[in-house]
């Protein structure tokens, strides 16, 4: 989940932004300042040397989890979740997202399916 949200949603002009209802933290993008300090302290020097940004801390991953979970209303079909129908192209049955916002051109996109099964309750054990 997190890599998909980081890749597709976390740009500062998109959901890496405190002005959005769905807010996504990611390395090199929006971070929680106090957690960034911890992340920097625990980053291996060779990773910093290679130019990598420090990974999210547990608290930041929890934040993203809560944000993503808030996109689902209990009792309603997950297909109605904006986490699924917003990034899906209108031509594939999704809702308008933003200019150039067709992240998934098809409901068969692997990342879309991953989001869908996660919202339906899949855990890591089901992905093996």
């Amino acid at each position, binding site marked *: 989940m997190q890599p998909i949200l980081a890749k597709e949603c976390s740009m500062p*002009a998109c959901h890496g932004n405190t002005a959005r209802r769905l807010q996504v933290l990611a390395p090199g993008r929006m971070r929680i300042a106090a957690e960034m300090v911890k992340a920097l302290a625990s980053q291996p020097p060779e990773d910093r040397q290679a130019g990598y940004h420090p990974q999210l801390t547990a608290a930041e991953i929890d934040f993203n989890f809560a944000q993503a979970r808030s996109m689902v209303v209990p009792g309603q079909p997950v297909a109605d979740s904006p986490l699924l129908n917003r990034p899906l192209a209108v031509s594939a049955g999704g809702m308008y997202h933003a200019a150039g916002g067709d992240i998934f051109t098809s409901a068969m996109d692997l990342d879309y399916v991953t989001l869908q099964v996660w919202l339906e309750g899949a855990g890591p054990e089901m992905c093996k």
Partner: protein
Amino acid sequence: MKARRALQRGSANPRPMAGHQAKLLVLLAAAPWLCGFSSVSMFEAAADHGGGGGYTFVGSPTSHDLDCTSCHQGSTAGGQLALASDPPGLFERGFVPGTTYAILVRLVAEVRGLDRNGTCQPDAGGCNRNGFVAEFLGGNHQPAGQLCSDTGQLSEQGCDSDSGAETTLFTGGRAVSGVSLQQPQACGGNLTSDCIDIQALIQAGKTQDEINQLLLASVKGRTSWHFLWKAPLTTTAVAFHLGAVDGDGGTQVTPEHNDYFGDATYSVHRTLYPEGMAPADQQAACGASPVGSPSSAHAGALLAAATAWLARIFRRRSRQEANP
């Protein structure tokens, strides 16, 4: 090619370096990690590792139309981006199939981060960083032609060096990005205004630490980049997409991991036709300066509208002349 020869003149050091000079330059080569935001070459890293997740952010269909402004935010006052090619005419007349072009991308007027030139030392404020990413796509959004770095050679087997002094290929050679920092050159046989004579510094009694500091303080934001592109053997158009950032050097977080605020961004989107094969209304635009600007998308739209309008007038006039 003139541009290529100039490149080789500029980067070659004709004298073998002494051991201590080599050590200093090795240290210098490590400077980028000391100095700032991840390089544009980090785009190929996964998004959750601080890269672009495989997207090139040039505003092309392969990036969901995401461009520099998806992350970098700020104004663009006064800046300008210029493109040129050797042989000339790629961006004015189109390409000759199978021809290798040395392409120059240049920030004509850098407006951001100038105060960070010379502050690229550890524990200092950070570096002035600039960069660009470009890709050429065919009709099916697949790479068109062959890209190569500035120091590479193109042959039938492809590009022999993905990583050059100024530009780097990434996403499997699909896109090219610009190295963000301008490292100082150690002076060779000929002293130039922008080289550092390490031998003279040693003779003047400077310590290695002092020389290191001097070298790092001479790092600037790069404002021009070369790369090679071999045009495809095709008679169909190629889409050229380029995004560039004039960075401000950052103001927060840490010197190692800079911010995306206060930067100027540029986008260039061109349809390049094989020479002489552009549609009539496109050929009318061939005199346009190959310059990208913050408003290039709007300017391009205006230009297209103007040329289409002119073409309509010419067609109407032709019809009137044919049927008075």
